[in-house]
Structure formats: C-alpha cells, structure tokens
C-alpha cells in the first residue's frame, strides 16, 4: 500500500521530467562545424531559410570553416563540397517552432580570395576582408561589409547596407533599406532604395560611374576638394540642397544640360569632371556637400 502511494506520487513527476527533458533537447542550441580543404578561389553558398546571422571573415589558410549554431532541432543544416564549391543550407524541418527556435547563426572563415553567395531572412550579414564577387540577400536583416572588394551585389527588402572601405563595383537594391557607403574605393556604384536614405561619403574615382536613387528618402553625397566629377541631380517633387556651390561649376564638357520642365535639377562639374555622378530622388531631398 505504501509502495502504491509512493508510485502514484512519483510517476507524474517522472513523466513531467521526461517531457521536460524531451522539450529541452528540442530547444537546446546545437553546434555544427565542418572544415573543407580548398585549392584556389572557392565559391561559398549559404542558403539560410531559417533566421539568423551570417558572419564571414578571412584567413590565410586554404580551407573553409563553416561553424553554425542552431537554436533547436527544428532546423536542419547540410554542408557539402563539390570541388571548390561549398554549399551550406539551413532548412526548417518543423514550422510549428517559436521564432527563437528557428534560428541558425553561421560563422565562416574563408580564404582571402573567395566568392560568396549568402542568403538569409533576418539577422545581420557581416563580411570582412574578403576579395571576390559576392551576392548577398536578406529580407529584414542588415548587411555590413568592411574592407571587401569585387563585384558586390546586395538585395534586401527592408535591411540596410553599411559598406566601409569597399572596392570594386557595388549594386544595391532595396525597398526600405538605407545604404551607407563610407571611404569607398569603388569604380562603379548603383544604389536604389524606394523609401530608404542614401549616404555616400568618400572619393569619386576618376572614370567611375555613380548612380544613387531614392524614391522617398534623402540622397546625401560628401565629396572631397580633390574630386573630379560631372554631377546630375534631379527630383520630381523633392528638393535639391546644394551646399557646395563654390565647387560646382557649369559643365565643362560643352554639353548643356537642363532639367525637364517637370523636375528640379542641378547640373555641374567639380574639378575637370572625370567621374560621372547621377543622383535622383522622387520626393526626397538631394544634398551635396564638401567634406571638411
């Protein structure tokens, strides 16, 4: 009788304990790490259907290290190598999980010369000191690039771009994300956001072509006194705030530009007009100023 009473009290506790244990195992973070030896310039592809951060840094080693932390076993991570291509995929195996259970964060270490194709839903994408073409896509996550070079393509829905000391070509397209380009060494820039703001703070390389467009946001350009570029700035219903009148001369190439009767425009040349800079905003402000 006594044993029976004890069993009655003990069994529910044991059951609850087992249930808790199972739930805990499903929710417990899991670590994943793989090393892939490469010879030349690898191509690393990450397709993160789950949410999470992707961080990429370079090393002198000829290997790609993929480390990941997944919040629960409701996510499956696969990584495979085919020659110089490394493919990593994170998929959700159980959609019923809470948002914090459907996270997979990646840390990659790659050779300095590596091509990247990274895609995530939310969470920061951070790439530092990598040389190679890259395509970076995110819905709501921001994208931060530091000292990267190559043909850089960035697509976001609402995520913003911060590009510091980037070189090569940059193509950014977003609906509501901002774009901030600081100290660039870029020869070709195309930035488009529908409602975000754009800030370009750096030198215009001679022969470079720079196009920056925002539907409703501000487009702000800070140039240096040594720069040399032709400028065309246009807005349909916004304003052009020219704080560099002293540096902006009429076009020196003999082509007389005029804004259409439907737009407000500003045309001119800084220096000898070697680079080409086109700024536009449908209803926002275009601001041009010289750095101190």
């Amino acid at each position, binding site marked *: 009788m006594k044993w029976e009473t004890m069993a009655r009290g003990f069994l529910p506790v044991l059951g609850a304990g087992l249930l808790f244990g199972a739930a805990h195992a499903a929710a417990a973070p899991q670590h994943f790490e793989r090393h892939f030896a490469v010879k030349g310039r690898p191509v690393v592809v990450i397709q993160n259907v789950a949410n999470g951060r992707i961080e990429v840094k370079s090393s002198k080693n000829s290997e790609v290290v993929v480390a990941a932390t997944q919040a629960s076993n409701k996510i499956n991570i696969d990584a495979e190598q085919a020659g110089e291509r490394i493919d990593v995929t994170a998929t959700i195996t159980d959609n019923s999980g809470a948002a914090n259970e459907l996270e997979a964060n990646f840390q990659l270490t790659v050779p300095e010369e590596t091509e990247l194709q990274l895609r995530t839903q939310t969470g920061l994408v951070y790439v530092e000191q990598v040389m190679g073409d890259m395509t970076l896509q995110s819905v709501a996550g921001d994208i931060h690039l530091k000292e990267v070079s190559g043909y850089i393509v960035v697509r976001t829905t609402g995520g913003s771009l911060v590009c510091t000391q980037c070189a090569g070509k940059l193509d950014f397209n977003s*609906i509501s994300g901002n774009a901030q380009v600081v100290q660039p060494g870029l020869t070709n820039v195309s930035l488009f956001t529908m409602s975000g703001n754009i800030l370009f703070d750096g030198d215009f390389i001679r022969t470079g072509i720079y196009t920056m467009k925002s539907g409703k946001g501000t487009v702000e350009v800070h140039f240096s006194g040594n720069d040399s570029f032709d400028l065309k700035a246009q807005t349909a219903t916004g304003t052009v705030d020219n704080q560099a009148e002293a540096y902006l001369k009429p076009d020196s190439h003999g082509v007389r530009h005029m804004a259409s009767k439907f737009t407000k425009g500003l045309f001119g040349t800084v220096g000898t007009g070697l680079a080409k800079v086109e700024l536009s905003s449908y209803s926002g402000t275009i601001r041009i100023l010289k750095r101190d």
Partner: protein
Amino acid sequence: MQCKEVEVVLEQQGFVPVPEAARAHLAGCSSCQGLVADLTAIVATAHLLPAEVEPPLRVWTRLRAQLEEEGLIKGAKTRTAWRRRFSELFGARALATAGVGALVVAAVVLQMRPPASHPTEARNTYENYDDTSLTLSNDEAHLPSMQLAGSSKVDVALRQNLDIVDKFIVDCEQRIKEQPGDELARDYLTGAYQQKAELLSVMMERGGVY
C-alpha cells in the same frame, strides 16, 4: 495529382486563383509553388511591355522563308508539329524561368525608351501601366492566407514593405496622371512595379499556395 498534371490544370484554368484541383498538391510541393511564383512574376512583367513589340508581318514572312530554305521547317502543314516539339523541348518551368529573364530585359528596354511624344503612344503607355497595376493588385489579393496572417519578423517586414511599395505606386500614378510627360516619375513607377512583382513572388513562395 502529380507535377505534370498540375501544369496541365494551370495551363487550362489559369493560376489566379489557383484551381481547386491543384491546391492540395501545391500546398506540399515547393517546385510547383516556385512555378506559380514565376508565372506570377511573368504576367506582372508582361504588362509592362509596350504594344509595339509585335514585329511586322514581313519579318515573320522572311523568317519563315529562311527557315524553310534551310530545311528547318517544311511549310505551313508542319508548323503545328514544330511548335509542339518546341514546347515539349522546354518544360513549363524552364519556359517560365526563361520568360522571367526575357521579360525583365523587355521591361528594362521599356524603361529606357524615350518619353512618348505622340498622344497615341502616350495613351498606350498609360494603358500598359493600368494593366500592370491591375495584374499586381489581383496577385496581391490572392496572396496566401498564411503570409497575410504570419506574425514572424519576416512576414511582418514583407507586409510593411508591400505597403510602402503600394503607397509609392499610388503616388507615382497620381503624378503621371497630372504630369504625363514626367519621365522621372515614369522611371520610378516602372521600378516600383518591378519591385512589387518581386516582392509578391517572394511572399507567395514563402507562404505556400492555398
């Protein structure tokens, strides 16, 4: 129902809304969901094409003569069979993917065209805009319920951005009605339509089809 049968149903009955017969299969098949998303993007982009893309009859005549001369086709009788073989060569999915590429190029060409100088041409352009706007609105009305009710950060972000695009489109359309010659507004409107088509495609792919 198999993927091939879904393709037939979509071909016969259209995909807006998704026919009842295909829904169960689509709900669990990412490949077919992708197909519907691609088709949606194609239709949206197709409405950006100008009416003038139809080549003159003499081009077709010359092309047919050339093909016959080279023995690639054998006159009018074999045309149907040739066309069928051509369509068999490309599966619906491959055609959809190729179509997206071709239409995006066409949309870019449209965007680069000089502003309409002739009243008829201008009217056609605005009709194209109307068609595009209507198609995209229809697509938006048929977004999967999961996408519209989702509370995840991504779902919320997608809906917020769709709202931004919609408001911007309304703004640009209003401007073009008032100032038909505003080329800058036309450029922005074309870009907004493209972004909306891409966004709807992402939302459909993410939310599944019901």
